[in-house]
């Protein structure tokens, strides 16, 4: 009896130490779920979800502080992907966060720009170049269309334009779904 108790206790201590060591030795530095959620987000860094960027929102989702339907640029497809990953039910986009829109970029009207640098400070992806009291311009290929540069502009010289879809960027439309099968009795 006593021997059995001792053996079990001893085993418990040995395994406990082993597990404790393993917990320190093999610690995962960042939460892999956060990485995977972040990979599904559109990276516009627009903050419409209520968090200062896509990664903070991903962290909030992983801690279950935020819901999965707060990202307007990701749209329905994004919500479905998140629901798939997290094993939850997809739900419609929360209208409080905004609505899904076609992709846009911004354009600075260079004749009106006074060179205040406020938009440069607001841009989350450093897509605006310029210097104090000199003209600024947007690098269109880097602009994510987050529109965060619009509110700080004191002279209202930034316009939203739709991304050009010329003949080279043309994409085939989804084929029309077939007629539903009607069973005539």
């Amino acid at each position, binding site marked *: 009896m006593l021997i059995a108790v001792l053996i079990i206790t001893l085993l418990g201590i040995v395994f406990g130490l082993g597990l404790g060591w393993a917990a320190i030795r093999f610690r995962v530095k960042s939460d892999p779920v956060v990485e995977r959620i*972040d990979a599904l*987000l*559109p*990276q*516009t*860094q627009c903050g419409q979800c209520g968090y200062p*960027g*896509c*990664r903070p929102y991903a962290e909030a989702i992983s801690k279950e502080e935020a819901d999965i339907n707060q990202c307007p640029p990701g749209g329905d*497809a994004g919500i479905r992907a998140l629901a798939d990953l997290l094993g939850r039910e997809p739900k419609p986009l929360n209208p409080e966060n905004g609505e899904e829109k076609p992709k846009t970029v911004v354009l600075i009207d260079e004749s009106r720009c006074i060179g205040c640098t406020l938009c440069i400070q607001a841009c*989350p*992806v*450093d*897509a605006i170049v310029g210097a104090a009291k000199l003209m600024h311009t947007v690098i269109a290929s*880097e602009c*994510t269309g987050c529109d965060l540069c619009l509110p700080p502009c004191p002279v209202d010289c930034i316009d939203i334009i739709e991304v050009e879809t010329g*003949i*080279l960027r*043309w*994409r*085939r*439309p*989804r*084929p029309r*779904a*077939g*007629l539903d*099968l009607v069973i005539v009795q």
Partner: protein
Amino acid sequence: MTFSRQIEIAREAGKRTHHFHGGLRLRHNKKISCQVPVERPPLPDLLAVPLLQHAGDIAGSLVHAGDQVLKGQQIGHCQPCAAIHSPVSGRVEAIENRPISHPSGQPGPCVVIRPDGREQWVELKPIKDWRTASSDSLIAQMQDCGLAGLGGAVFPTHAKALDGRDRQIHTLILNGAECEPYISCDEMLMREQPDKIILGARILRRALGAERVVIAIEDQMGAVQAALTHAADCTDCTNVSVVKVPMIYPEGGERQLIQVLTGLEVPAGGRPTDLGMVCQNVATAAAVADAVAEGKPLIDRYITVTGNGISQPRNFQALFGTRFSHLVESCGGYTDDVARLVVGGPMMGYPVSTDGNPVVKASNCILALTTQDIAEPQPEMPCIRCGECARVCPVTLLPQQLHLQIKSGLWDAVEEYGLAACIECGCCDFVCPSHIPLVEWFRYGKDEQRNRVLESKASELARKRFEDREARLLRIKQERAEKMTRRKQMLKDKAAQQDRIRASIDRAKHKGPGNSDRQTSGKPDDT
């Protein structure tokens, strides 16, 4: 497989019949357009030469409205795609968007030229001594003359040749197997200009450093074999053979043709150069002969105008920029019951809404169909899993699976099931008993996949830029905080400050004015 084994197999090309998977035997309907010799249509009064002729970028225009151009003068420049030349001498009227043959139906930029009728050529620079010229100079000549594959894909010839020259190539295959019904422009070219094709083949062979040339034609092309064999009967034409292949659609695809000739399969995602072969269309070879031996750039091509909706179907040698309507008029106009105009063949072509579109490098056929030709649109029914589509697929894909995966947006599965290998031949569409527009789905799926790659690249870039910016802001904040603490420290430490002031006064005395006092500014490290 070793290179020597590849050569051995290529040498046997055509002696044994091989097959590719699936395919269809179609009624070919080619004879109707082969009745009269090929002619040039009358010179049109206006030509619109598109600056977008193949996948890639839009060529930059080298001329402006009002400029005089000579026949063969370069008017469009684009790297690495093919150059574009003026098909006539005349005056540039405008550079503007006009209807072109594009699956989107959108207009594209064109150089509009009004011919002056003088047909004055630009100074031509042929390479007369091509037998001794270097491979590089031959390939450069092909690029300068704007050569591109005339089989339909319009891949720039110089790019293909460069890829071939950098690999070890033993065999050049000339593709005369024009398997799609109705199209007969390659057959007519082989009948009428066999010498030019053989000359082009020899030049291409030299440029590639290949040893053999195999010209593949279809077994139904009666007089063609005799013409080509006769043309290939010269002292300089050793190792040029003409091989007949059975006519099964889509044998004109280069991968399918190589499989029929050699029994070897070009690996998915690979190219024929992986097997030591390069495949070119016979019309491209003829264009190479023109470009190198005569210095003439590519400004026209053979084109079939056919179908039951055309009064007298035939082939033309048409200048690029000629409107389809001009060609149709030149062969007697439409019949009364014409219903649809298709660019390309009935299997892979696409309908266009206007006959105002210009002829381009890719235009091998204009097909006018009548109401009887067009099957009544059948309602699409659910897939019944009969497997017919998989049976006829020449690339052994599973079209029914791909269709469902694309429909449900399972893009990882779509990639795994090899959508990228689909050649859009339309065999699966043709046999589907449920009338599912499979190829339409596959084209959509390919576009979607391409877009997903672009989007994920863009979002990756945005993520990186956001993270870098966050890191920079954090660093600046830390640097500020550090600076503040040092300042505070310095103010507290009165004695040290006195020392510092004395030290800087001393230094100023020793070195004179104009020296900065970097050490005392308390600038923090960059970490």
